[in-house]
């Protein structure tokens, strides 16, 4: 029995607030090359951690140190391959020792060490400020924690990290940077108090794509209450501009399960609309519509080769971090 199996056997049954790390999606796991070490994360403990840096570090520590290798080839110390000299090539890259042995003029290619530009995009619309029961993080706090932890991981891997806040437009933007001060700036931006505003996610993403440097990894934390067709356009543009993306759909359990038992009046957090319905009667239709939306989102992102991951606020977010690492490994 493996260590993880032994630990699972010794552990008591899952409590209401203790969750195992979700397995990484198979596609991401393939890219990662190895499964992340299963770990335990107490969500109530995480919620009790008041500040974002603490939560971020707790999460980053839970997923372990990330490592990646760039698959770009270039002028680096680590050998990659030989190729024939072509006019125009830098003569300094010719392997003269090989020429002395074989009379062949070969260019020595090496793995190029390029920093990864990660742009964290946080949806700070009013719909994110929702928690269905006490003890649960709001969707916004969950997203902040995950993105903060990702920023730390990015920093540890010496990649560049930027941040953008999305509402109905790109509210605030810090371009990716690799300095230690950037991490604090990112955390500070994540912690910015926000005003409840309606969402126009596709429009805000368009603005982010427009200002982002080339070949960024967009990590978008949102509830994605946007028309999938509108999102599809901007996601395709990301793909066209050789960006990579990881969509983290933050979901409160009540949004997914919709297990209200008594008639209530629902008020839209982003619109003045109110609705009196019998939730028991409407639950089936709601769940169906929600699942269809989620499926459409998955199709939108996967259609462009990106990943879409759902994060329940009552579940461990380590899967999101693992997904990032997998994505990072794939980019390397």
């Amino acid at each position, binding site marked *: 029995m493996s260590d993880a199996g032994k630990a699972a056997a010794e552990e008591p049954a899952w409590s209401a607030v203790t969750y195992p790390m979700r397995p990484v999606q198979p596609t991401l796991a393939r890219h990662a090359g190895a499964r992340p070490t299963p770990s335990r994360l107490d969500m109530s403990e995480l919620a009790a951690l008041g500040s974002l840096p603490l939560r971020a570090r707790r999460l980053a520590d839970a997923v372990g140190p990330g490592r990646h290798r760039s698959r770009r080839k270039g002028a680096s110390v680590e050998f990659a391959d030989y190729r024939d000299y072509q006019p125009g090539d830098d003569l300094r890259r010719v392997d003269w020792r090989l020429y002395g042995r074989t009379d062949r003029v070969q260019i020595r290619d090496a793995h190029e060490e390029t920093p990864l530009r990660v742009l964290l995009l946080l949806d700070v619309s009013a*719909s*994110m400020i*929702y928690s269905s029961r006490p003890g649960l993080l709001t*969707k916004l706090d969950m997203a902040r924690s995950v993105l903060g932890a990702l920023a730390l991981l990015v920093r540890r891997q010496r990649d560049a990290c930027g941040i953008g806040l999305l509402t109905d437009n790109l509210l605030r933007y810090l371009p990716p940077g690799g300095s230690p001060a950037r991490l604090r700036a990112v955390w500070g931006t994540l912690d910015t108090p926000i005003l409840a505003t309606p969402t126009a996610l596709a429009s805000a993403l368009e603005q982010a794509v427009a200002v982002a440097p080339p070949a960024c990894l967009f990590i978008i934390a949102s*509830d994605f*209450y946007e028309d999938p067709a509108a999102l599809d356009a901007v996601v395709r543009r990301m793909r066209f501009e050789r960006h990579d993306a990881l969509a983290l759909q933050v979901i*409160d359990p009540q*949004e997914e399960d919709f297990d*209200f038992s*008594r*008639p*209530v*009046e*629902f*008020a*839209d*957090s*982003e*619109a003045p*609309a*109110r*609705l*009196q*319905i*019998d939730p*028991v*009667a*409407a639950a*089936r*239709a*709601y769940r169906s*519509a*929600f699942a269809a*939306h989620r499926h459409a989102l998955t199709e939108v992102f996967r259609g462009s080769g990106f990943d879409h991951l759902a994060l329940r606020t009552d579940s461990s977010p380590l899967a999101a971090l693992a997904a990032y690492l997998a994505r990072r490994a794939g980019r390397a």
Partner: protein
Amino acid sequence: MLWLYPGFLIGTAAVALPILLHLFRRRPKRTVLFPTLRFLAAAAPQNDRSKRLRRWLVLFLRCAVLSLFAAAFARPFLATSKGGQRQAFAVVIDNSFSLRAGRRWTDLRTWVRDQIRDAKSEDTIGLLVMAPKPTWIAPLSTRRDSALAILDTLAPGWDTAQAEPALRLAGDALAATAADRRSIVYFGDHQRVSWAGCDFGKPLPPGVRTVFPDVPAPLARQAAVRAPVITRTPTGFHVAVAIENFTAAENRTLYVYRDGATAPVWRQDISLPEREIQTCQIDLPPGPEGVSAYFTVSLDEDDLPADDRAYGVWQASGEHPVLLDPTPDSGSDYVGAALAATAGLKPYVQVLPIPASAWPPSAVAVLRNDASFSGAAAERLTAFLRGGGSALIFVGGGSAELRWLETAGLKMRPLEEEGDGLELRDWAVDHPLVAGLASHSASTLLDWRFRRGWALPTDAVEPLALWPETGAAIGETTGIGGRVLICGFGSDRRDSDWPAREMFVPFVHRAVTYLLGSPTGGTATPAQVGQPLPLPAETGFWRALAGPTAAAPPVQAGGTIAPNAPGVYEFSYGGQKKLFAVNLPPGESDPAPWSDGKPWRNLESTAHMASASLPRVPVSAIQAEQHSPLWWWCLASAAVFLAAELAIANRTTR
């Protein structure tokens, strides 16, 4: 649309329940701020709009189901008559002779026609007269013209009348109708005697309204001549007549006519004191010889001429033979003693022993000895009865007696006392004999108790009184020939103390008198209008010699007759003639109206008709409802709606 049982429509009030449920149904009290309603909006519009529609539909269906159930129980049917309220009028007519005063009758008739002038063709009208007893002369029906025609031809009678029985009868009849408006129209003069004894505290049935005319103007001149007493004197006739004046003192002229002559045999001016009775003693000459004579005593006419004339009869009467058989034992002869005690009363009787030869058919045989029913005596008895003789038989239980009675079709059944003895009950009080016995006090019919008796078959005799269980105790039959009164008990004290009681002598006397065919009390107490008069058993002709009906043709009669007009009547039978004087009831002559307010207004019930009485359904309505069974459609519709409600309500709550 009409309803057979509209009371069930109260059930439609139950629709308030689903309406209240709809209005006060559970509404969400909690508001939940939710990230987005986009997915709810996808389900909610149909959820909300269709649910709202369904809720209204469910409300409608529930109300419809309840209403249809109530309608089905109320049994609807299509109207076959014109719209509007239906009315029923019962005209209660005081047809006593006091209405003959002045223009009272015609004025009241006009007033009544005004009251029912608005009656429509579908309204019902009935005419009920009070005297001699409440009788529908035009039952409640929609034949308005027919009723009015009867009313036009109707004239006041000669009797007295009581208002209450007729009003109660009319009220009950009206309450049984399905009319929306039920009215009693009183056709009367509010005379005190007609309201006497009325229980004004007992209202008529609820829903019956009353319409009373005003009290008529008092009469200026009113006096009444009472029945004269005619006696034969050596010098002629003596007439004693009382005249009662009901108004102010005045001078009047009194006339006496004899045997229908138009010229008076006596004329006298008299002074009548105010509201007092004046008695006149008149001696008349003998006039033509004969066995009978009748006299008419009259006053000059006043405002009520009907009672200004009275009639008296004198009739020569001999001694009637009564054949009395020996007492069955050696004890006291109570029957003989009774006959002896009443020998001084008319009709005079001569008590004779049973003869050994044929019995005279004009005699009355009083039999109580078993020997009278055996052998030759039995044959003579049978022949006597077949010849028209009458008999009073006290059944002593002798074998010959019972055998003879059984031969005559009267199989007697012996009865033994149980407990307090055998007491007679169910007296036929309208029989002349019984009516005479009870005329002064009904107590004479009480406590006739015997230790032993014999029950007469009720199908073979006319019962005058019954035994406690079955069978007649006293019965009359003419099946054997003459009139026979049979008492199912003995006349001595072996079976009862009755012969020693005070009712024994009057019974024997009146029974013999009755069998002799004479009116009880003789000529001294002339009959009144409406009273039954005992006639000889033989069939004869009855005709009026004087009085309002003098011109009427003779009618065949026998047994009893109740004359309905005053006058002198002659009954001719078997070559004999008997005269009867019939006069008006005295109380009716007093024209004084009821003086203590107008209490008849209290007769109208203040109770609400719908709450106090169940609606009576006329047969026509039931038939109309049966021809159009809409209740079935109501039930079927309710069932369909109920099924729809269940389906939709389940979807609404799912």
